[in-house]
């Protein structure tokens, strides 16, 4: 084995602790970055795979019809067309009622239903996988299904269906079940249909989708079937992907910061390690080693070995973490089937960085050490304290601590920088948490009612409201109409879906945060209010601009009167009920909103029972029931997922910073044991040594805390902007976080103390003779 190889191995063994810390620091930073990149890749490839399997399928939601479908396959580009029945139902199990969406199986199998049992279907009901998981249901369980206006029937859970187009129940509060035509009979449903699923030939949607679907709609219209809403199956997937993409982008940006942090750390460590080798390098130079020998032979082997270990560690850590994170994310969001692999691009990147980061970082200190004159290097001398004179201002031990810290400027700077980065992320995370919490509170203040029912009725608005109002405990009740509206975009064929809510103009059941313009009560007729989620749909429309809305065959142009903050419910339009009814004739209310007296909230179950009994008595069919509390809790699910990711990143950064400060202080004390020995020899007690080193640790901790506070501000603005735009299509309000600052101050001080006390104890316990000898 060549001499330089042997020497590199032995040197590594000799500096094992320092090298170990160095490797761990870089590996953790690189692994954080690699985990994010690989998870993002896995997530994207899963989405792509699922989208490919879903083909170009479109749902047409229509008026109820019983007749057979016209031959839509005669239209060029359409592969399949099948009529289905779909309805909201209430499902009871384990003593509580939940809202479900019930759908019949299509008679043909498409790729999206990967676990589609295919005919013949077992009797009973099949449930969507995430629905089963969320409600802890298993195959064989009995559940009661109640269709609006029908009798409640018991059905057995016959199996599980995987449907990646479905947004999980925990985010929407809506489960999904599938039934066979036979089971439809058990539930008392006629052969009525209200949905058409159309599958286009591969690639046709992109090429000519709008025209094909328009032809299909026209053909259906000839048969008396009106399409009210068009929904591309992949839309549901895109919504989830867009949100996670932004979060990934943000985390990858933080990961890049982590790599920057790693470079600083490594420069710092190499500086410390090479500084220790000053004398050895000078000896090598005396005996003929050229600069290229020292760099290429002796340093490259060390760097090569370090690089290999970093690469392997980074690969292992990031492979495990990205498997865990992508599995959790893909399962939680119901995106598809995870086929785990390690991206070749990411592998290549970490391969390069594992060697490049230590090499670049080592070049600076090695170059500096190599430039030291041989004579100075042989003496292992340090540079003299630069200031020739100092004004007499008395002496304190803290002054010595500050001078000692400032003497090694590069070390001081890197120590401070590594702590500041981690601290800034933690402070920003706490501030982001505050911003999100306050935004969430504002959102939760949006709905002022306590509960709501989705209903079907032939009664008028005033009658339905009166029925609900006359119930014991009800303070106020209103009847609204909520339905889908198509937003007509540039051409007549291009459209996007939005939820339209027609409510009383003076309703106090909604308390919106108006961002621009006005709320309905201050607007003239033919004006609408949109939420911030709607804005990007129609090309960042502003108050005063006009847009066309379409429901069925009815199309009308409206003026945007105001924009309110989104509620994580997707694009929504708010319209005064008088405007709505002058546009759509004969439309009956389909939502009842109830506010209870505050003293009646404890007995809400009784009030719910009474209202539902009254509804049944008056032939008002119930499709779904929800409480405002549940509606408010759902955004928390999404927000907590984002915060969790950010906090993990912040904690990782800080852990690396903390670890390195402790190590740096340890090496610092080790290098100065001669000076410590002298202080003790001239009468300094062990306590004085503790004071001296504590002073240094606290000095660094305090400066890094100040810098963290300053750095956290721009970082917080960035996080607020990205997360806010991703979640609610507007930046989150910036909030000052005294908790974050205090938390990091406490952590910094504790860290300064820990980083000083441990090496101080080790050093103070050594005999003075050994300390002076520098052993």
């Amino acid at each position, binding site marked *: 084995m060549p001499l330089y190889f042997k020497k590199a191995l032995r040197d590594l063994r000799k500096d094992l602790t320092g090298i170990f810390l160095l490797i761990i620091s870089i590996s953790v930073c690189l692994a954080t970055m690699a985990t994010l990149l690989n998870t993002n890749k896995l997530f994207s490839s899963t989405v792509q795979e699922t989208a490919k399997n879903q083909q170009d399928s479109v749902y047409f939601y229509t008026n109820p019809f019983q007749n057979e479908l016209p031959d839509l396959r005669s239209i060029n580009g359409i592969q399949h067309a099948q009529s289905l029945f779909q309805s909201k139902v209430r499902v009871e199990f384990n003593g509580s009622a939940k809202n479900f969406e019930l759908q019949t199986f299509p008679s043909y199998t498409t790729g999206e239903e990967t676990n589609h049992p295919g005919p013949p279907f077992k009797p009973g009901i099949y449930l969507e996988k995430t629905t089963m998981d969320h409600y802890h249901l298993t195959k064989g369980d009995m559940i009661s299904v109640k269709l609006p206006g029908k009798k409640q029937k018991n059905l057995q859970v016959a199996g599980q269906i995987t449907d990646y187009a479905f947004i999980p129940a925990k985010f929407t509060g809506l489960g999904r079940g599938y039934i066979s035509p036979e089971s439809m009979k058990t539930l008392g449903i006629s052969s009525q249909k209200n949905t058409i699923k159309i599958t286009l030939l591969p690639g046709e949607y992109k090429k000519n989708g709008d025209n094909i679907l328009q032809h299909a709609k026209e053909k259906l219209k000839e048969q008396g079937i009106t399409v009210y809403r068009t929904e591309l199956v992949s839309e549901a997937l895109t919504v989830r992907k867009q949100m996670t993409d932004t979060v990934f982008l943000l985390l990858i940006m933080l990961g890049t910061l982590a790599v920057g942090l790693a470079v600083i750390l490594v420069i710092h460590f190499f500086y410390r390690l090479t500084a220790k080798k000053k004398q050895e390098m000078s000896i090598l130079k005396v005996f003929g080693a*050229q600069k290229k020998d020292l760099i290429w032979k002796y340093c490259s082997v060390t760097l090569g070995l370090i690089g290999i270990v970093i690469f392997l560690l980074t690969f292992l850590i990031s492979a495990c973490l990205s498997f865990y994170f992508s599995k959790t994310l893909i399962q939680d969001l119901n995106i598809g089937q995870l086929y785990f692999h390690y991206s070749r691009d990411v592998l290549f990147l970490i391969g390069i960085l594992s060697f490049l980061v230590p090499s670049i970082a080592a070049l600076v200190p090695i170059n500096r050490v190599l430039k030291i004159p041989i004579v100075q290097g*042989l003496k292992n001398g340090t540079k003299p304290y630069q200031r020739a004179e100092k004004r007499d201002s008395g002496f304190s031990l803290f002054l010595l601590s500050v001078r000692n810290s400032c003497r090694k400027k590069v070390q001081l700077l890197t120590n401070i920088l590594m702590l500041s980065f981690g601290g800034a992320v933690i402070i920003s995370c706490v501030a982001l948490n505050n911003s999100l919490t306050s935004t969430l509170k504002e959102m939760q203040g949006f709905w002022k009612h306590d509960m709501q029912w989705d209903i079907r009725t032939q009664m008028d608005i005033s009658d339905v409201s009166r029925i609900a109002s006359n119930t014991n405990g009800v303070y106020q009740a209103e009847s609204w109409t909520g339905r889908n509206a198509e937003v007509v975009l540039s051409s007549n064929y291009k459209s996007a879906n939005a939820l339209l809510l027609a409510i009383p103009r003076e309703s106090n059941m909604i308390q919106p945060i108006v961002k621009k313009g006005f709320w309905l009560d201050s607007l003239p007729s033919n004006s609408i209010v949109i939420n911030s989620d709607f804005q990007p749909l129609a090309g960042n429309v502003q108050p005063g601009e006009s847009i066309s809305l379409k429901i069925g065959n009815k199309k009308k142009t409206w003026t945007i009167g105001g924009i309110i903050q989104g509620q994580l419910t997707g694009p929504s339009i708010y319209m005064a009920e008088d405007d709505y009814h002058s546009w759509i004739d004969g439309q009956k209310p389909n939502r009842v909103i109830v506010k209870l007296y505050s003293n009646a909230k404890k007995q809400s179950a009784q009030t719910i029972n009474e209202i539902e009994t009254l509804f049944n008595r008056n032939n008002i069919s119930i499709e779904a029931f929800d409480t405002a509390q549940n509606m408010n809790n759902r955004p928390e699910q999404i927000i907590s997922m984002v915060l969790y990711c950010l906090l993990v990143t912040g904690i990782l950064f800080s852990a690396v910073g903390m670890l390195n400060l402790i190590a740096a202080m340890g090496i610092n004390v080790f290098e100065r044991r001669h000076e410590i020995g002298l202080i003790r020899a001239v009468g300094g007690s062990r306590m004085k040594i503790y004071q001296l080193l504590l002073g240094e640790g606290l000095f660094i901790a305090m400066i890094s805390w100040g810098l963290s506070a300053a750095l956290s501000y721009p970082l917080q603005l960035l996080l607020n902007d990205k997360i806010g735009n991703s979640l609610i299509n507007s930046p989150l309000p910036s909030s000052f976080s005294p908790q974050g600052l205090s938390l990091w101050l406490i952590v910094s001080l504790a860290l300064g103390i820990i980083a000083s006390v441990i090496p101080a104890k080790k050093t103070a316990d050594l005999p003075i003779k050994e300390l002076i000898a520098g052993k």
Partner: protein
Amino acid sequence: MIQLQNLSKVYSNDAGQFWALKDVNLSIHKGEFVAVIGKSGSGKSTLLHLLAGIDSPTNGSITVGGKKISSFPQNLITKWRCRETGIVFQSFFLLQTLTLLENVMLPMEFSRFLTRRKRKERALSLLKDVDLLHKANHFPDSVSGGEQQRCAIARALANDAPLILADEPTGNLDSENAEHIFSLFKNLAAQGKTIVMVTHDTDFSQRVDRSLLVKDGQISDIYFTNEKVGQI
């Protein structure tokens, strides 16, 4: 062999300028064993460092073997030092993570002297000469100071350099070990090597071909084997 002309070395710091050597003129012949003596801070080590090319003069020139090394660029001086000199320090300066054998092989690797196998053979032979063959695979920490210095001498001889420079080679050793080291130098001188040795030991300084007394940065006296012949 060595010619020093008007050689000066000045160090500067906040306290001002300090003349470590001032206008030194000196000739050393091939095969001579020269001792450099003087008090601490007189400039002995500076003189040796300048001869070895590990420090550069402020003024004047150094010519060794007909080559004006004081005007060599850094990479050339490194090559020259490697092939033409062998250096022994008071603190031995052995590399702690290399065995005694590997320490001796190291200068040969830098100068690409001999083949790899031959280098090992030569290193073992040199260690045998200094009576350390049985400890060839020991690390420096596990041998005595005297043994470390013997190994350092073997290392200085590795490239078969004609000039051996020694900076207080016996300064850290007891009298028995010091005597052993000195006898090794005597043998080398007998083999034709030129030796310049900085020492505090008056006994050794009287047993060399010539002694130079350095005082306040100048060579003030030259002695030839116990006999004062003149003053500069």
